[in-house]
């Protein structure tokens, strides 16, 4: 296996992108990424597209995007790991480069969710679990699935709805400084509390929005990086796991088993101490599709003990200057959540943070040279944890 690094990355303005079609949206992310990497597009050996689709018109998005980017006839594939599709694309791209089959691979995620009406999108995401036994008869929704976790967590650890709202307040705060975020408004706990219920006990401001967006990550081999003197963040460890399709087959509703497993794998591969991961990282991107998801992520990643994730929020330990800054781009909550592009956008954000290119209020101090992306698909159906490092380190 060869060492693999990221040499360029970008994500588009997230939101309701009625101004562009799928090819045009992909082009925005791609052209910025190759500019940053300072490479010709002919250099790309293979293309991995992450997209969930259903709500959008194109059935073969990898081919549509490939043609639009002008990178055909290079090989391509579309991958799906629900909301973790983006990280799965980065993992596949990493593996192809690490194995020596390619020198440069593009992982690009895209989603045009607003091509369908809201209720249809709600339906498609609700079907992302076990269709026959959990959707067909009981009409679960994505907020509904996470609300089942929220109820169990709040009951066990005496957490209030106000406490969960603190997560939304933080992520909107950082989103307000991110020009690419879907929501740029700062909010208060009161504003969050007064928003209507989507799936009790989760309210509108506990939820990430329906989003159009694209994100690109260019992944290259050590030889290529040396030759091109690329600005690099190395992929030092990826962990992954799959949860049960039926939520009813799980024992516990206060954390995501798949995310815990993925984290431990990633720590082992990246050489991080699983007892104190937060102290070895400069920042993290975690999958805050709902406020409860960010709280559980702190615990699943080992940033907090079981039941104490909410304390990190209340004590502002995941703001800049705290134990570990989390979601300095606004997270899924404020930046937006274009399902198939979210993973690449997290990794793009970390790449720029590590290289000190974010600047302004969102840039955090880089002292340890390491950052982590926690990307969950569905309701703990898929989990990917990716550790990036400025140091080349051992082969992951």
């Amino acid at each position, binding site marked *: 296996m060869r060492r693999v690094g990221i040499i360029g990355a970008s994500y588009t303005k997230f939101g*309701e992108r*009625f*101004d562009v079609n799928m090819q045009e949206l992909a082009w925005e992310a791609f052209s910025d990424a190759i500019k940053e990497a300072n490479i010709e597009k002919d250099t790309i050996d293979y293309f991995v597209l992450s997209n969930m689709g259903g709500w959008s*018109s194109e059935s073969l998005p990898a081919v549509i995007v490939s043609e639009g980017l002008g990178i055909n006839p290079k090989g391509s594939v579309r991958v799906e790991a629900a909301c973790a599709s983006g990280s799965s694309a980065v993992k596949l791209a990493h593996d192809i480069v690490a194995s020596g089959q390619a020198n440069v691979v593009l992982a690009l995620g895209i989603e045009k969710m607003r091509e369908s*009406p*809201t*209720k*249809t999108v*709600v*339906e498609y995401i*609700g*079907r992302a679990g*076990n269709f*026959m*036994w*959990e*959707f067909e*008869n*009981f*009409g*679960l*929704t994505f*907020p*509904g699935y996470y*609300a*089942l*976790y*929220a*109820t*169990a967590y709040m*009951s*066990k650890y005496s957490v209030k709805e106000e406490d969960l709202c603190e997560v939304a307040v933080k992520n909107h705060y950082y989103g307000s400084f991110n020009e690419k975020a879907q929501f740029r408004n700062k909010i208060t706990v009161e504003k969050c509390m007064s928003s*209507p*219920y*989507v*799936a*009790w*006990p*989760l309210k509108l401001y506990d939820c990430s929005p329906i989003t159009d967006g694209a994100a690109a990550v260019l992944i290259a081999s050590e030889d290529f990086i040396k030759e091109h003197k690329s600005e690099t963040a190395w992929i030092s460890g990826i962990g992954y796991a799959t949860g049960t399709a*039926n*939520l*009813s*087959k*799980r024992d516990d*509703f206060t954390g995501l088993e798949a995310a815990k497993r993925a984290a431990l794998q990633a720590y082992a591969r990246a050489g991080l101490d699983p007892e104190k991961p937060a102290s070895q990282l400069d920042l993290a991107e975690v999958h805050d599709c709902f406020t409860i998801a960010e709280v559980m992520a702190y615990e699943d990643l080992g940033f907090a003990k079981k039941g104490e994730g909410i304390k990190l929020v209340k004590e502002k330990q995941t703001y800049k200057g705290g134990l570990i800054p989390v979601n300095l781009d606004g997270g899924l909550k404020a930046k937006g959540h274009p399902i198939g592009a979210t993973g690449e956008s997290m990794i793009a954000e970390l790449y720029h943070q590590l290289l000190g290119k974010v600047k302004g209020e969102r840039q955090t101090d880089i002292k340890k040279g390491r950052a982590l992306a926690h990307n969950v698909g569905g309701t703990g159906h898929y989990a990917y944890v990716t550790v990036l490092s400025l140091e080349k380190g051992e082969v992951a």
Partner: protein
Amino acid sequence: MSDETEKLEEAAEESKKKLGSPIVTDQKTLSSLWFDQRELNVRYLVSVEKIKKFYEEISAGKVMATKCAKCGEIYFPPQSYCSKCGSDSMDWIELSGTGELLTYTVINVKPQSFSHYPDYVVGIARMPQGVNVLAWIDGDTGKLKVGMKVRLEVKKRDPEGYLTYWIKPE
């Protein structure tokens, strides 16, 4: 068709008369959008051949799971083979008795195909047989509590008029 889609269709019809093409304008961004002229309705045919007994028993008011005759693993939803030991010799057992409510939620914002229902309550119950069941909760939802005692009940789901199972507080 959702209200959102109906409005778009009206606008597209207007546009076809004026411009000749079904172009609608997004009110927020003022972008031009093509309103799809092809409508796709999807209904799947899902095989239940190997778990037919579940539907025979539910008509008698029973909710059934399967149990591996070789290793004893219990499956709900019922499964015709054992993922654990590989056996395809399965017995049917009834999920009965008093269970415990593990968690619940109220679905306020509904999917398109559930938009004809009032807000519904979904819960997960741990049954004494050792498996969990996810279903709608029937009863006084204001009194629900994690950990409360519940049982399963079979009744008709209207307006579709088919049999399914509910979680019922005791």
